[in-house]
Every structure is written in structure tokens, then in C-alpha cells.
């Protein structure tokens, strides 16, 4: 290994002028025949690391500006790790692993971790943000215009440091601030419906208003001393309207009070405001709810029977998909591996075509081809037979497997071709000499060797098909529905499409990302367990 022998002293100063290390290294490694290479390599490394560091520092600064401290510290840690690994002589193995590890952290571990975290919250419709946001939204949503009140042309004014409004009420200009209710002002200058000057106040120009939009929209100027008259607010700094608040937030008691009937809504641990008689306000916030989502997932009686059916079908679908595609792919691979077949290259190229078309497109095409009345299969091939390929429970399952076979066999064909060609010819010859027939050779020599090579890929294919959402969604959308279930699930739904429906991500119910994440983790565990067992089985094959 001709790793650049970076002087340790330089680890802390990667941006040092390149001339100096070149000179020093040249002297030190003068006896080494690779000295010139190493030197150039080190300079290159230095340049690349400088680039990486510059990018990293940029990300750190950007994260700081956005107050995203999680990203900031993650990036700082990654940068330190990268610099240590690539300038230290001790971390040789890490030099190879680090890039992959960084990707793994960002794209896998973080995603899984975040999903796991969401699974323990009530994130979803109605619990979309923080409590602070929910309170603000509730207050804003529950302001009502005072009945029968007019719209007033309005100007934003300032008195000392206090913002205020001046409104044109008929011919009279009235002005006030949050503390001072509106009072008539004499000698104001009005042009048309625009107030130009208000004695005692400074009229703010548009730029000044836009510079403090949040303050202006939050400003409430009481109409009079009587709270019933409401207070003036504006949204566009041109028109003012009198409002009263239906809800008021009591910060000390952490309650919302309905001012019309005095109902008190208390903040609860599940992220809503609830009154004593059980009514809740429509905006809630995100909280950690512990294992509640997992309990919900398994306690709803409506899902009990469909879940068992869907679990069984998911496993059957994934397993059958792997078996059928592998057998067809293997068969074709063996046929086209025979040197007597002419034009093998052309056939092989043609066979890969289904693999080259995006899966969701093929699924859509097939759903058209399988249309009961107008589809090509029924209409042309079967002479107008109205066979419900996608509407009969068993035929729909068959269609799904059939389309998946069409989509999946080229992949298996490819890997089986590769594995077959890798089997040493002398093994087959030895089998022949030992008197084994064709089938015996295939059964005892070819297949075990093939399975050793393709076993992990078959397991990966199983895991993929276990979550093959695209195909199910594009071809049958899970249909036909279970006639005896009270939930929108069907005979071809697999676990992942069930999650999509149950958690409302498809729009059929209020979205519940917490529940969706919890169910995803359950699926993760199922797939993980099955894959682990399968891997253990394939390891036995290798011992043959």
C-alpha cells in the first residue's frame, strides 16, 4: 500500500502552503522510489481535503444561520472525523470505510432513527407543529368580526415607540394605540380615503410598515373602552376591521377560554386543548405519546381480520414472486447459455427489455391491458371474454404475480446467466465422469453453486417485493375490496399499502404520520427477521 505518509505535524494545518511540505517530504523520502508519486498524491489529497473542509465549513455556517444546530454539530463531527481519518496514519481501515459510513449515517441511520422517533409522537393532521404555533393559530382563527361593523380605511401611525392605527370613520379621523383606544383627532389631513397627516402621531410610510409586518398584524387597537366593541386590526395596512376574540389564552393556567360561553379548555398531555365535557379545539400540537401508536395499530378490532389476511398474502406474494421470477430467469439463462442456440446475444438483449422500462409505467400499462371490457387481453386475445382479471379476488392475485413475473424475470435472468458462466467447467466434467446424468448434475452441482452466488440477491429480492408498493398501487390499488371488512382494504393489499391506507397518507382519513411510522417499524422488524433467518440458511449452503 503506497499510502501517503503524511507528517503528523501537518494534520493540524492542512491549509499550509503546499511548497513547504513538498520540500520537506521530498528530502525525507528521497530514498523511496515512489517519492515523486507520493508527493503529488499528498498535494492532491491536501487540495481535495481543503475543498471538503471548505464545503463542510460552508454547511456549518449555513446551518448556524438557520439555527439548525443538529445539522451543525453533525457536520462538525463528520468534518473532524474526516480530517482525522485522512491525515492520521492510524486509521487505515477507516480510510476505506468512512465514505460509505457517512452515506449510511445520512441516508439510512438518520432516516430509520427519525422514523422511529416519529413513531412515538402523534405527528399528523391536527398535530402538525409546536404548541406555540398551535396557540397562535387558534387565537388567529378565532377572531370574529364585530357584527355590523364597517371596514375602515386605515393608516399605520406611530406615537413615540408605540405603533398605532388611524382610521377614517365617516369624515372623522380616529387614532389610537394598543394602550389608548381610538379617539377623534382634529385637523388631520385626508385625501380621498387616505389619511396623510395625523397631529400627535407620525404617519408611517409603506416601507416602514413592511419593515415591521409582524408587529403591525399583531397590533390590536381597542375601538373604545368597552371590550364588546372589539379592537381594530389590519392585514394589508390599508383597511381596518373591528374584531373580538372568541378564544383567549391564559398563559399562567395554560388554558384557552371561550369568551362567548366561558368554556375552559385545558392543555392535555396528548397535545390538544380539551374542555371538561370532552370537546377539543381543532388545532393541536406534536407531543411524544410513547407506545400509543403501536397499541392503536393492534387494538382496532376493524383491522384484526384484514391484517391477518394481508400478512399472509404479503408473505405469499413476496415468496412466490421470488420463486417464479427466479425459476423463469434460471430456465431462460440455461437455455441461452447453451452454445447451440443461435443469436443468443439478440435474445438476451430482448429479454432484458421489461427490466429497462420503469416499473410503475409497466404496471399502469398492464392495468390497461387487463381491463375487463376494453383490455387487449380480454378484447383481442380472448375474443371479447369479460374476465375480471383485476376484479376477481383470486384472478387479481394471479394477475399481480403474473405482472411481477414479467417485470422481475429479466433481473433473475441476468444474475443466473452470470452465475452459470462462473461455474467452472471442470466440475461439470467431473460430474460427467462420475456417471451423473444431466438432471443429477443440475440438481447436485449446478443448483447448489448457483444458490451460493445468488442467495443473498434472492433475499434482497424478497425484501423488495415484501414492500413492493408501486406495483400494487399502480395495478390494483389493493382491490378488489374485502367484502366482509369495514375498512378500505382489499385482497391484493400488502402490508405497506395497508399502512398507506390506515395512516391516511392516501387521503382516506386524517393523516397520521405517527401511526404510519409505527406500522413501518413493525414491517421493518418482520422483513428484518425473515431476512436474518434466510441469510443463516444460505450460509449452510456454502458449507456444502
Amino acid at each position, binding site marked *: 500500500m503506497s499510502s501517503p505518509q503524511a507528517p503528523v505535524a501537518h494534520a493540524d494545518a492542512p491549509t499550509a502552503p503546499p511548497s513547504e511540505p513538498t520540500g520537506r517530504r521530498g528530502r525525507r523520502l528521497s530514498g523511496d522510489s515512489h517519492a515523486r508519486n507520493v508527493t503529488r*498524491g499528498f498535494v*492532491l489529497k491536501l487540495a481535495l481535503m481543503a*475543498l*471538503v473542509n471548505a*464545503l*463542510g465549513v460552508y*454547511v456549518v455556517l449555513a446551518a448556524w444561520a*438557520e*439555527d*439548525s*444546530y*443538529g*445539522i451543525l454539530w453533525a*457536520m462538525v463531527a*463528520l468534518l473532524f472525523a474526516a480530517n482525522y481519518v485522512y491525515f492520521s496514519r492510524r486509521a487505515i481501515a477507516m*480510510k*476505506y470505510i*468512512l*465514505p460509505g459510513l*457517512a*452515506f449510511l449515517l*445520512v441516508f439510512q441511520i438518520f432516516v430509520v432513527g*427519525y422514523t422511529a422517533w*416519529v413513531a412515538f409522537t402523534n405527528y399528523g*393532521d*391536527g398535530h402538525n*407543529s*409546536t404548541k*406555540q*404555533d398551535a396557540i*397562535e*393559530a387558534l387565537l388567529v*382563527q378565532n*377572531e*370574529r368580526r364585530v357584527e355590523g361593523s364597517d371596514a375602515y380605511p386605515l393608516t399605520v401611525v406611530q406615537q413615540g415607540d408605540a405603533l398605532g392605527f388611524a382610521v377614517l370613520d365617516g369624515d372623522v379621523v380616529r387614532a389610537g394605540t394598543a394602550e389608548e383606544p381610538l379617539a377623534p383627532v382634529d385637523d388631520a389631513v385626508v385625501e380621498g380615503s387616505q389619511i396623510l397627516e395625523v397631529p400627535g402621531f407620525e404617519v408611517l410610510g*409603506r*416601507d416602514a410598515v*413592511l*419593515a415591521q*409586518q*409582524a*408587529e403591525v*398584524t399583531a397590533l390590536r387597537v381597542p375601538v373604545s373602552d368597552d371590550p364588546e366593541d372589539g379592537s381594530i386590526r389590519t392585514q*394589508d395596512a390599508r383597511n381596518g376591521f373591528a374584531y373580538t376574540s372568541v378564544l383567549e389564552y391564559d398563559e399562567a393556567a395554560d388554558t384557552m377560554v371561550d369568551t362567548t360561553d366561558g368554556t375552559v379548555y385545558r392543555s392535555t398531555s396528548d397535545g390538544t386543548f380539551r374542555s371538561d365535557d370532552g370537546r377539543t379545539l381543532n*388545532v393541536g400540537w406534536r407531543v411524544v405519546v410513547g407506545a400509543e401508536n403501536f397499541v392503536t395499530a393492534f387494538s382496532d378490532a376493524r383491522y384484526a381480520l384484514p391484517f391477518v389476511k394481508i400478512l399472509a398474502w404479503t408473505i405469499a406474494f413476496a415468496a412466490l414472486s421470488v420463486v417464479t421470477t427466479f425459476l423463469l430467469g434460471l430456465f431462460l439463462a440455461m437455455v441461452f447459455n447453451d452454445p447451440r442456440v443461435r443469436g443468443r446475444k439478440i435474445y438476451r438483449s430482448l429479454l432484458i427489455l421489461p427490466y429497462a422500462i420503469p416499473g410503475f409505467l409497466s404496471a399502469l400499462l398492464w392495468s390497461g391491458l387487463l*381491463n*375487463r371490457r376494453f383490455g387487449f387481453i380480454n378484447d383481442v386475445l380472448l375474443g371479447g371474454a369479460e374476465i375480471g382479471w383485476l*376484479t376477481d379476488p383470486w384472478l387479481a392475485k394471479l394477475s399481480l404475480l403474473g405482472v411481477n413475473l414479467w417485470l422481475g424475470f429479466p433481473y433473475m435472468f441476468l444474475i443466473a446467466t452470470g452465475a452459470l458462466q462462473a461455474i467452472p467447467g471442470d466440475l461439470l466434467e467431473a460430474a460427467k465422469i462420475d456417471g451423473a446424468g444431466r438432471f443429477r448434475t443440475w440438481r447436485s452441482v449446478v443448483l447448489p453453486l448457483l444458490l451460493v452466488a445468488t442467495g443473498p440477491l434472492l433475499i434482497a429480492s424478497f425484501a423488495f417485493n415484501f414492500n413492493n408498493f408501486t406495483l400494487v398501487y399502480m395495478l390494483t390499488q389493493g*382491490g*378488489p*375490496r374485502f*367484502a366482509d371488512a*369495514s375498512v378500505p382494504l382489499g385482497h391484493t393489499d400488502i402490508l405497506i399499502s395497508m399502512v398507506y391506507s390506515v395512516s*391516511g397518507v*392516501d*387521503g*382516506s*382519513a*386524517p*393523516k397520521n404520520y405517527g401511526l404510519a411510522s409505527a406500522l413501518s417499524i413493525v414491517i421493518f422488524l418482520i422483513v428484518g427477521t425473515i431476512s436474518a433467518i434466510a441469510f443463516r440458511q444460505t450460509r449452510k449452503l456454502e458449507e456444502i
Partner: protein
Amino acid sequence: MRRSIPFVAVALGAALTLTACAGDAEPEEPAEPTTEESAEPAAGGDLTIWVDETRQAAVEEAAATYEAETGGTVETVLKNFDDIRADFNAQVPTGEGPDITVGAHDWLGELTANGVVAPIELGDKASEFEQVAVEAFTYDGAVYGLPYAIENIGLIRNTALAPEAPATWDDAVAAGQAAGTDYPILVQMGETGDPYTMYPLQTSFGAPVFEQNEDGSYAAELALGGEGGLAFADWLAAQGEAGVLDTAITYDIAVEAFAAGQSPFIIGGPWMLGSFEGLELAIDPIPAAGDQPAQPFVGVAGFYVNGQSENTIAAVDFLVNYMATEEAQLALYEAGQRPPALTAAADTASSDPITAGFREVGAEAVPMPSIPEMGSVWEFWGVTEAGIVSGSLEPTAGWEKMVADIQGALDAA
């Protein structure tokens, strides 16, 4: 040295990824409203608006006027319309959302529950809009959006095949059969049903989906059961048996058949018209199958203001004073071919008989419910209708089970 190259790629990837997920990587970080952004130098009303492809040019036109008159800037961000709803919900709480987004009125229940939209006071402007448009954007007494277009379905008639508008469903079927075409009338359905297209026929039996309050808003009480609903279910079964309705007819098949002159009638909306060039068309009210008027759903498209925008004043100013003009609404009409929501603009647009036809049907229509409960209805509704039409479900039992299942879903939510 080779190993450094993948590493740079990794660092680049990691850097970009981390930047990209800057919004949601910190879920627990307490939100500090107003302090951060207002501390930055606030430029004069710089707005960010999410628009879809159809609407982009029209919004930019109004934005140019706004920019010229106020000195603010408007940045339009092109989004896929189907992504806007979820992205808006997710991004507003992070502070990364736009100031304004285009949207549909039936998102309203979800957006308010998530606290991501701000009410807009239209003031006296409200009376300048079609009543149904403002009603559709009203939730619990407050208006949440500036409407710009109204869309609904009607009966599209090929005048070469059927010279007169049918009065009832049976008339339409008879006229269609008399025309000697392949299909008497085309109603898209598909194996999972299409309750949106079927809705006017359902209301003609007096079975609306939810109870309606006096002010036009919906209460979360199912109304599609009862006698009217069952009569509708029986009718579906009869039409399915007669072959007039067929679950094999999807949107694509229906549109293609109508364009090929295979039927004098199709129930559909303005979005189909692009496929019907060269045909002489007329838009009629949807013929009632029951004894009550056939009322389709009205969808209203509009602009929402981000509930946590730091530019509320500029945003509302832009919407109320620059998008609620006849000029702007007509530009949006030219782009999307939906009748405008502003009455004056709609009057101008009605010089086109097709637009006038859809608008006339829309005047009798009802807004699509925007209450969150509506989401639980669709999934059961369409499949049951399709099942009854195809004969796999017995009409009365099937319809009653559907009502019970929807109620179950509402209770569980």
C-alpha cells in the same frame, strides 16, 4: 490517492443532503416565532408564491404589476399541484413555507387543523365574488383564501348527435339510444368508482353526503343513507344491469369514446375540453335521475396565505388588491379555462358559451365539503357504487354497509 475522490463525493453528498433536510432535521427545536426573521433586514414586501404550471404565467403577470407599483419583489416557485398540499403542511411549521400558495378549497379543513393558513379579511371585496366561491373558503365563520376559479362538471353534449338538451336521465338515455351510437351516455367510473362524477345523480335522489348548515357549510353528520340513498343504490343497480353504466369505463376510455363521436353525452368538466377539439359542443345541466335537482360538487381554486408568514401585509395586499382584479382573474381564466370566481371577470368570460354553460350549472351546485371528515368518505363511497353497478354487491345491503363503515371510520378518527 484514489480514495479521496469518493470521499469528496461523499462530503458533497452529505453536505447537500444535510442542507436539503435543514428543515426537518430538528423536530424538537422549540419554535421561536417572529424573533429570528424580523431581526433580518426586511426588504419591502418580498413575496414567495407557490404556483402550478398552468397558473404560473398568469400569477407572474399580476406580480409584475405589483412589483411596478410597490417596489416589492415576487418570486414564483413552480410546484406540482398534487404535492402542494402535503409540502405546505410540512414546510410552514419549519418557517420554510411560501408566503402564498395556490390551492383548492377542500384542503381547508386539513390546513386549518394544522394551523398553517391565516384567515383573510376580504371586507367589502367579498361581495364582488360569486357567493359559492367565498362560501367554499369559509371555515367556522372566517374566510381563509382568495378564490380565483370555480370548477364543476356538467353534461357535455355533442350537438351533431343530439340537438336538444335532455330534461331527465331517461330522456338522455333515450336520446342517446336514438342517436344510434355505441354508448347512450358516458359516465366515467372505473373499478373503484367515481363518486365525484356520480354525485349530481345521487343528489337528484335527495341524498347529499353530509348535512348542510344554514350558511352552506357542512356538519359532520352523514346524510347519504336513508330512503334517498337506497333509491339511488337501486337505480345504480338497474343502470348497471341495463349496461348504461359500466365500471370498465375509465376517464381515458370515456373521453376517447366521446371524442370519437361514440356518444352524444358525457358527464365531465372543463378539463376534458382540450380532447374534444373539432366537435360542436353545448353544456347543459346534468339531467336528474330522481325527482330532485341534480347538483354537482363545486370545487373552488384559490390562494392561501401562510399562517406563519412574516410578510402577511404584503401577501394580503398582493392578493386582495392585485389578484382580486378583473384583469388578473381573466388571465387565470385564459390559463386554466375555469370560470373566474370574481363576478365581473366571470361575466366577461361568459361571452364564451361553453364557459357560460359550466357557470350556469355551477350556480345550482353545492361546494364540495372541506371538513376533515370528508376524507373518510371517498374510499368507501366509490367502491360501493362500482360494486353495485357491476352487480357484485346487492344494492340495499351494500349501501347500508357502506354507510355503517363510513360512520365507523368517522367514529374511529
